[in-house]
């Protein structure tokens, strides 16, 4: 019988939606309800939130000052210690999970499956390689635990359910002192989160400047959308790094994605392949973005956006 452990991601106050996505992946593993591990300090509220996600059987809360920040070097020994009792260990394929889980896998001496995009069997998964241009099916042999990160964009978040118990769990491993948290600088305000927003308004080099991005923010606010960007726009300093969409940025699956002044490099397209509807506005009719767009419009974004706003009334 499979036994699944999901590592929760949170910011100390709230559970990250990626955890509910991991739980819906876990539900496909032909196992019972999963145990969810919350590592944090003063994270009872997070644990209670996790206890209400469908698919959770029990929440284990490891509460220690050393876990106050999501530092892989601090968390990995504890996760590895607990993981020994499970057949599957899952974490989201976010920067949190990508940082933490390979460290856990190495402590366990087992390989990791990165970015699971579908479950083909309890030990068989599909995952993207070559920026999503080759999808491989991999199987984990029976004698190894499955250690895998779950691609956010590929799984719907599990819904709410009646709360399951929260139990305290204390690891015996002591956290190292060689890694110290200094600070988190975040450029984001209170706009919808890029990874979970229903609609995303994205801009590229064609937007031209940080000031011009105001046009996109205004449209995003009208639509309740999140704002994203190409790497070129981030590199040019138009927007902060956490807005980058693509192979090396965020992989997202909104219902609708607007690409304004983005050419459509494969590294960018990797990030939006799972979007419901892709709308592209570019003044170059030959831009590769039009090959993947569901709706394409050749035009100048600075004319098109105000016209869209006018029609929104």
């Amino acid at each position, binding site marked *: 019988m499979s036994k699944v452990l999901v590592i929760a991601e949170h*910011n100390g106050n709230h559970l990250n939606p990626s955890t509910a996505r991991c739980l819906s992946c876990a539900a496909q593993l032909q196992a019972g309800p999963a145990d969810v591990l919350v590592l944090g300090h003063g994270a009872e509220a997070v644990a209670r939130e996790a206890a209400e996600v469908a698919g959770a059987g029990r929440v284990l809360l490891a509460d220690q000052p050393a876990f106050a920040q999501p530092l*892989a*070097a601090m968390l990995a020994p504890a996760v590895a210690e607990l993981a020994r009792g499970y057949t599957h260990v899952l974490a989201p394929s*976010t*920067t*949190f999970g*990508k*940082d933490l*889980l*390979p*460290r856990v896998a*190495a*402590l366990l*001496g*087992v*390989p*990791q499956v*990165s*970015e699971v995009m579908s479950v083909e069997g309890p030990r068989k998964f599909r995952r*993207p*390689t*070559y920026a*999503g*241009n*080759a*999808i*491989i*099916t*991999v*199987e*984990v*042999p029976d004698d190894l635990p499955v250690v895998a990160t779950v691609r956010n964009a590929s799984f719907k978040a599990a819904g709410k359910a009646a709360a399951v118990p929260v139990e305290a769990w204390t690891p015996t491993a002591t956290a190292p002192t*060689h*890694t110290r948290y*200094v*600070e*988190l*600088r*975040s450029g*984001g305000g209170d706009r919808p989160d890029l990874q979970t927003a229903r609609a995303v308004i994205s801009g590229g080099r064609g937007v031209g400047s940080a000031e011009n991005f105001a046009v996109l923010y205004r449209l995003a606010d009208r*639509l309740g959308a999140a704002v994203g960007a190409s790497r070129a726009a981030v*590199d040019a300093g138009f927007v*902060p790094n*956490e807005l980058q969409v693509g*192979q*090396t940025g965020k992989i997202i699956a909104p219902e609708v994605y607007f690409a304004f002044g983005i050419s459509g490099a494969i*590294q960018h397209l990797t990030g939006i*392949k799972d979007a*419901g*509807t892709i*709308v592209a506005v570019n003044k170059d009719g030959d831009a590769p973005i*039009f090959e993947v767009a*569901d*709706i*394409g*419009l050749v*035009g100048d974004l600075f004319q*098109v956006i105000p016209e869209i706003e006018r*029609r*929104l009334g």
Partner: protein
Amino acid sequence: MDKIIVGLKRVVDYNVRIRVKPDGSGVATEGLKMSVNPFDEIALEEALRIRERGEAREVVVVSIGPEDCQQQLRTGLAMGADRAVHVPHDGDLEPLAVARILLGLVTREAADLVILGKQAIDDDCSQTGQMLAALWDRPQATFASKLETSGTTARVTREVDAGLEVIEVDLPAVVTTDLRLNEPRYVKLPDIMKAKKKPIESVTIASLGVDPAPRLRTLHHEPPAPRQKGVMVKDVDQLMGTLRERGVLG
């Protein structure tokens, strides 16, 4: 600090569009342009800058893979690495095996800092640096966009989903690079000539006591599902109409 080790993986160049073999057995890479994994080039650039600031004495580049990896090591030497180590291996290697091999080299060389790319653009695993740090029982600073070293510590700015996270780690440590860490220098012809004289040492996997056999079974390769062909609209009226038809705009 004395020594920095940088890993250079040989991968299909990022500008090349790869194709999955029709029988699903793999990706057709024969005859394609091969390059240093872009993140690894950034790793090497960073190491060179640290050495050029006088904060490290030596930069050693390492590549694990077929004979042809020596081309990528030559590129690394031409960029300015002092010497190179090649670990010959034909066939697939999982990140865990790579991490074990690197651990052998890193201990042998008594490295103070290891800089690797945050992911290789072929397998897109994003595991090796973290695994090496775990096996070595040392700090990791992944997805770095800024790296400052001072004596026995490093201060690293990391690109995380929530923004920029700053951490401080004791050396030795493993750092993995994000794209905005730096812009790698171009290699000049005289440097390529000079690099020919620099040594490439060969170290076998067996001598490091590592079993390179992959544990995961790759059963099948397939191209991504194509998206349905889209429509081109000629103006904003049509655009809004199509969006409403699809029910994506209220």
